């Protein structure tokens, strides 16, 4: 639920509770709203994002990567890649930031209920998909079998690698397949190769499966071909796109995507799009 102030660009204060280093460049930040009323009522969907504001530095859109079931708290996985995120990485527990949102459509998880779930992530794409995956685990009874494929170029770049590794104990008992793979790392002891190369290990039924993907456009192209050939229902294939969502509310125009007949704002109409929306926008991926 979007709780805005009179001014849609105004923010809510949030306190940083914990910061975990995930990789060399990415860390996980746990925040809590300062205002108890906001903390009580703030809801979000997996795949939605917030605008995080560091006064004096600027605002950045960050997708939420925690489970939507845990209320009043949320986690953001942030890569240190610019002026603002560099400042965020210097935050200490107890520090305050500004948050507005959540924005975007998010994954339509209601439609996923009763189906198997396949999550495919590459690189930083694991951040929004962790939210979907944790949602499914927290609502385990609503889903069939679950498979998550997490890939990165190198082992040290694999996001949430340890967290997923630790889940392997319960995974088998819960019909969850966790596949982690690297594409370029010669020293990586585990699986190697792109997501498409491990699809044979997915324990889902293509005919009754929802797919959530996040990664670079090249991955989408490969996966789309594979999924459609393998008989997955295109209506349940969803991807999330990255753009520069400066305002988050469809005003500033930086995240516009598409061509003349399907002109969209990634922040408002997306960032999650289904298979048919993607193939209707020529040249998008």
């Amino acid at each position, binding site marked *: 639920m979007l709780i805005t102030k009179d001014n849609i660009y105004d923010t809510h204060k949030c306190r940083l509770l914990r910061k975990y280093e995930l990789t060399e460049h990415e860390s996980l930040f746990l925040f809590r709203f300062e205002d108890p009323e906001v903390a009580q009522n703030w809801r979000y969907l997996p795949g939605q994002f917030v605008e995080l504001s560091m006064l*004096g*530095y*600027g605002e950045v859109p960050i997708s939420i990567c925690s489970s939507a079931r845990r209320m009043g708290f949320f986690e953001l996985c942030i890569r240190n890649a610019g*002026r603002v995120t*560099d*400042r965020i990485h*210097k935050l200490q527990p107890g*520090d*305050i930031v500004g948050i507005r949102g959540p924005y975007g459509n998010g994954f339509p998880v209601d439609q996923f209920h009763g189906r198997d779930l396949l999550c495919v992530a590459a690189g930083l794409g694991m951040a929004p998909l962790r939210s979907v995956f944790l949602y499914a685990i927290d609502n385990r009874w609503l889903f069939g079998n679950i498979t998550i494929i997490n890939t990165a170029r190198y082992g040290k770049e694999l996001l949430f690698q340890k967290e997923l590794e630790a889940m392997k104990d319960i995974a088998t008992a819960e019909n969850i397949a966790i596949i982690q793979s690297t594409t370029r790392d010669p020293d990586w002891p585990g699986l190697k190769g792109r997501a498409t190369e491990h699809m044979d290990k997915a324990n889902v039924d293509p005919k009754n499966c929802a797919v959530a993907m996040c990664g670079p456009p090249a991955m989408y192209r490969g996966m789309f071909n594979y999924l459609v050939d393998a008989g997955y229902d295109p209506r349940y294939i969803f991807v999330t796109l990255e753009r520069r969502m400066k305002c988050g509310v469809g005003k500033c125009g930086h995240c516009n995507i598409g061509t003349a007949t399907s002109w969209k704002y990634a922040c408002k109409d997306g960032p999650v799009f289904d298979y048919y929306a993607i193939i209707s926008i020529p040249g998008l991926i």
Partner: protein
Amino acid sequence: MMTIIEECTGDCRPRVGVYALTSCYGCQLKLATVQKIIDISNMVSFESFYMLSSASKMAADVDVAFVEGSVSTERDLEELMEIRKHSRILVALGACSVNGGVQSWAEGEMDHDALHKCVYGDSKLTMQGLQATPISKHVDVDYYLPGCPPEEDEIMYFISAFLIGTFPEPKDYPVCAECRLAGNPCILIERGEPCLGPVIVAGCKARCIGFDVPCVGCRGPVPHETAWFDSLAQTFLRKGMTEKQIRQRMKIFGSHDPNIERMLHSILGGETE
């Protein structure tokens, strides 16, 4: 919220050095005459600022060094190397430092010997001059403040941002953008005058065009290879300018741009001289 200040005794203010190589001293003058200079001098400690202070050191240990001027003598080069060694952040201040300045106008036309002969004849000097070059040809530069001279608001924005541990996002769009917002009529379209607005980086709020004077390009070409000299040369040709005029005009402040020669060549052919 700032990172915890390490234990410091005495003066904990950030240390600043202001240095000049070869230039007109206008950038330092601009820095020294911003309205809030006293506020700045309270927030930072000027370790070196020869133009204003006799308590200056050449290459003091500083957090940020502003360097104005081009490298035009061997001594400049030595000083620049020293400055870089003693500075955490090095800022190129102004056109000479960023782009080589007007002294690079003859770049590609006359070499240093020819320049020297033209001004000093056969007289020998004890000091060695060099072909003027931007400082980025010799050392790593952390930030650029373009302009001849730089604008007050950009200097203030940089210093304020520096004080909280960041830097302003550099502009990457041309003067035209600010000119339209200022409501000036376009003198390039209307009168066909050689306005360099389309290829020069914004920040001056189209100061000169506001006075009906075509842009001479003192802020230097738009960075990130988005200064389209070739397109503008085509436009200028259509407006009736000669190849020589176009080349000269664009090179006043842009002769060190890595693309200018290639782009002009594609439209105008080789040098006509």
